[in-house]
């Protein structure tokens, strides 16, 4: 682990801390102002401060110090939790997020003078007024005393850890002081020193490696060992000298660069856990490698039967009985570099292909049906699902940014919007989440700017002056469905149509557009009903970009608008971008893949169920519903003459698919070959974008097959056929 890795961890933790603080402040705003909530906010900001100090991010450390001072007052109950205070703390948190982003991006620190002054002023006023009255005025907001509040859950409190490390009592005043000050007070660690944790694992002494030599190098750099952790050292008859039982915490001089220390452990690899800064003060709990002697037979917990004094039995009991002095269980999660996960996903993708190729080869040899192949297929699927699950993240990481967006919109539009969130624990692929942020932001800006009316207009029609934005996510039929709904006035279809005609998007002679078609006009490039271009929306590119973004994610977006009641934008997204299930169909000499999420059913219709409409259109009668027939032969570059279509229709199969904008349609193929997982390879990356083709994959026979972009294909073919038909 090098400095860059540790920095990455710091930023990950910053993100978690920011989310925790925001959740806490939201809870405060909703009325939950108990001690644990306040403590959680304090800890989150405190944690960022500790890391910022350790990494030398001065602006961030300075800002968090001021922020934390006020939070300390709140925690001690000297400042009551009022709505105004929470609003200010939320603004302060927004600024903190900006600070973290600037550090992460290497950009100049944001201008925090105004908010910093407000925080400092609030903090200083407490000192002048004396806090007792304020604390009495808001007893519910008072947090427990730091010592009482900490308990086991507070073990990540940097000050507490420092105190523990230095063997002093945690004092409330120390909790307010910066790391350096707290350290200086003890006189053992200089103000600019930083902590280092070294924990050799089993194997650290392999191949002639010697951990004590690393420690010696640390001392030569000026480091001082402040703690040797012997807590998991077992009794001598139970120990294996090859194991690593000891761990050390060093105080390193501020003048020593981290890289210099990292060099010492360059070739150690994963045989030694090395932590820096705040992390060094909060190392993960270590597990005892054998039963600890004190856990052997405490009578009250596990009375040792006289008949079973053998040490093996004692060991078993000791291992089973939790010792009060035993180390806490190790963390149940680990951090993994995303690049490594991507490598795993790629490997799994290749495994899926290799498994398909093996199955194909065996089929060709007449060995298709045997148990081991089915077992392998099941295992590959299990591995694929597990690998995908590693990348899954709750959508709350995107939803959690919305409150800030609404606050910003409230200050720029004057529209105060209440946020209702559901299904925020729904998980989807990290890549999808990352790329979802932009379209979601556009949609929310659009909902507040265009959808939700002003407070006066809402009151005039008997609505709550405060609008409501609803965000929900759920897993449905192998897809993630995200709904962004507002309770505004709904889409003004007359206005939309007029604007579309004015901009030449719609032919003025066409008057038979459905409500759905009119709603979808807002996705047309260059469409905007906003009278003026604003910084929020109305640039005429937002909704077009939204649709494009969603499409690039392999998803689709639909609109459900109710005049006077509001509008819902519904995004249907794939769970993952890498591997999917598909139906392999044969068209001429080509194999194509139809994503299974589109497939409704397949059938071989009787001749009487196919009706012609004009020269170009064939319709399939499916239980009284007529669906356009789209021959896939056109996609493969084959002849599209009616005669050919007629010929293939007699012997072909129709696959009924659900599309985003054209409802259902029937794809005409020669035969259905198989149904299996396929690994999506981008055509854009390897060739270029092709209309009607969503990508490519490698089949079991090693050949490349195109993945059908069902939505685009059906839309193109139906509109292409309608045009001459209408002209005729």
């Amino acid at each position, binding site marked *: 682990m090098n400095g860059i890795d540790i920095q990455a961890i710091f930023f990950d933790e910053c993100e978690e801390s920011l989310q925790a603080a925001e959740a806490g402040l939201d809870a405060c705003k909703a009325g939950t102002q108990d001690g644990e909530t306040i403590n959680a906010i304090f800890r989150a900001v405190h944690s960022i401060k500790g890391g910022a100090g350790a990494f030398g991010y001065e602006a961030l450390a300075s800002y968090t110090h001021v922020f934390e001072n006020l939070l300390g007052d709140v925690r001690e109950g000297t400042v009551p939790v009022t709505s105004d205070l929470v609003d200010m703390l939320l603004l302060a948190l927004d600024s903190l997020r900006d600070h973290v982003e600037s550090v992460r991006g290497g950009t100049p620190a944001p201008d925090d003078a105004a908010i910093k002054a407000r925080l400092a002023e609030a903090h200083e006023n407490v000192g002048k007024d004396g806090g007792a009255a304020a604390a009495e005025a808001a007893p519910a907001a008072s947090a427990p005393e730091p010592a009482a509040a900490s308990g086991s859950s507070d073990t990540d409190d940097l000050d507490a850890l420092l105190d523990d490390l230095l063997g002093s009592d945690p004092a409330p005043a120390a909790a307010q002081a910066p790391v350096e000050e707290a350290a200086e007070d003890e006189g053992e660690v200089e103000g600019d020193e930083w902590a280092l944790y070294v924990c*050799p694992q089993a194997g*650290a*002494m392999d191949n002639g490696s*010697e*951990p*004590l030599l690393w*420690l*010696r190098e*640390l*001392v030569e750099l000026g480091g001082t*060992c*402040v*703690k*040797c952790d*012997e807590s998991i*050292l*077992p*009794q*001598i*008859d139970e*120990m294996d*000298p*090859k*194991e*690593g*039982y*000891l761990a*050390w915490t060093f105080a390193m001089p501020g003048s020593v660069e981290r890289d210099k220390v990292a060099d010492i452990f360059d070739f150690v690899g994963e045989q030694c856990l090395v932590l820096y800064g705040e992390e060094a003060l909060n190392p993960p709990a270590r597990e005892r490698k054998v039963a600890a002697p004190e856990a052997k037979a405490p009578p009250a917990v596990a009375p040792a039967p006289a008949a079973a004094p053998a040490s093996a039995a004692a060991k078993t009991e000791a291992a089973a009985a939790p010792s009060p002095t035993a180390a806490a269980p190790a963390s149940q999660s680990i951090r993994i570099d995303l690049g490594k996960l991507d490598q795993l996903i790629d490997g799994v993708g290749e495994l899926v292909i290799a498994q398909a190729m093996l199955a194909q080869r065996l089929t060709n040899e007449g060995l298709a049906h045997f148990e081991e192949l089915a077992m392998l297929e099941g295992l590959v699927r299990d591995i694929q699902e597990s690998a995908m699950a590693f990348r899954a993240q709750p959508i709350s990481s995107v939803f959690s940014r919305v409150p800030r967006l609404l606050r910003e919109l409230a200050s720029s539009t004057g529209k105060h919007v209440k946020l209702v969130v559901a299904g925020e624990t729904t998980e989807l692929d990290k890549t999808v989440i990352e790329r979802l942020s932009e379209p979601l932001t556009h949609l929310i800006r659009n909902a507040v700017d265009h959808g939700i009316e002003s407070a006066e207009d809402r009151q005039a029609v008997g609505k709550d002056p405060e609008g409501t934005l609803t965000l929900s996510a759920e897993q449905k039929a192998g897809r993630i469905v995200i709904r962004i709904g507002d309770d505004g006035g709904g889409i003004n279809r007359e206005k939309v149509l007029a604007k579309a005609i004015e901009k030449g998007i719609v032919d003025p002679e066409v008057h038979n557009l459905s409500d759905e078609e009119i709603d979808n006009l807002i996705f047309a490039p260059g469409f905007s009903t906003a009278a003026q271009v604003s910084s929020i929306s109305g640039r005429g590119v937002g909704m077009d970009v939204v649709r494009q973004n969603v499409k690039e994610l392999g998803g689709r977006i639909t609109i459900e608008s109710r005049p006077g009641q509001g509008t819902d934008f519904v995004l249907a997204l794939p769970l993952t971008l890498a591997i999917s299930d598909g139906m392999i169909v044969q068209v001429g000499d080509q194999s194509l893949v139809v994503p299974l999420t589109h497939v409704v059913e397949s059938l071989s219709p009787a001749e009487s169920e196919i009706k012609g409409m004009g020269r170009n259109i064939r319709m399939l009668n499916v239980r009284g519903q007529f669906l356009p027939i789209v021959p896939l032969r056109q996609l493969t570059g084959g002849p599209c003459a009616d005669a050919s279509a007629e010929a293939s229709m007699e012997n072909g199969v129709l696959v009924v698919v659900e599309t985003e904008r054209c409802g259902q349609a029937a794809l005409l193929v020669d035969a259905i070959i198989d149904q299996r997982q396929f690994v999506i390879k981008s055509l854009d990356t390897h060739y270029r974008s092709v209309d009607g083709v969503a990508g490519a994959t490698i089949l079991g026979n090693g050949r490349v097959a195109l993945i059908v972009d069902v939505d685009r294909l059906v839309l193109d073919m139906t509109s292409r056929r309608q045009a001459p038909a209408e002209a005729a």
Partner: protein
Amino acid sequence: MAVIELPRLCDRAAALALKGDLADTTGSEALPVDAGNVERMGMAMLQVLLAAQRNEPGIVLTERSAEFDRALAVSGLTETFNTGAAA
């Protein structure tokens, strides 16, 4: 009482060899250990000595080489071991 003399090279192999001797010790008096000849001290031996120190009746260091003391110092264990003459 017999004194256990630590070898010049206190590496992992030496620790494995010495562990048995230290573990099998019985009696009421601390086992004398001579660390006067130690020229290289390793973590494995340090762990064995620490475990032996905890194991009743423990150990007592009769001699300590400079190198041994240095190893204790860098690992923050200078004050951990009992030091004294052999009984």
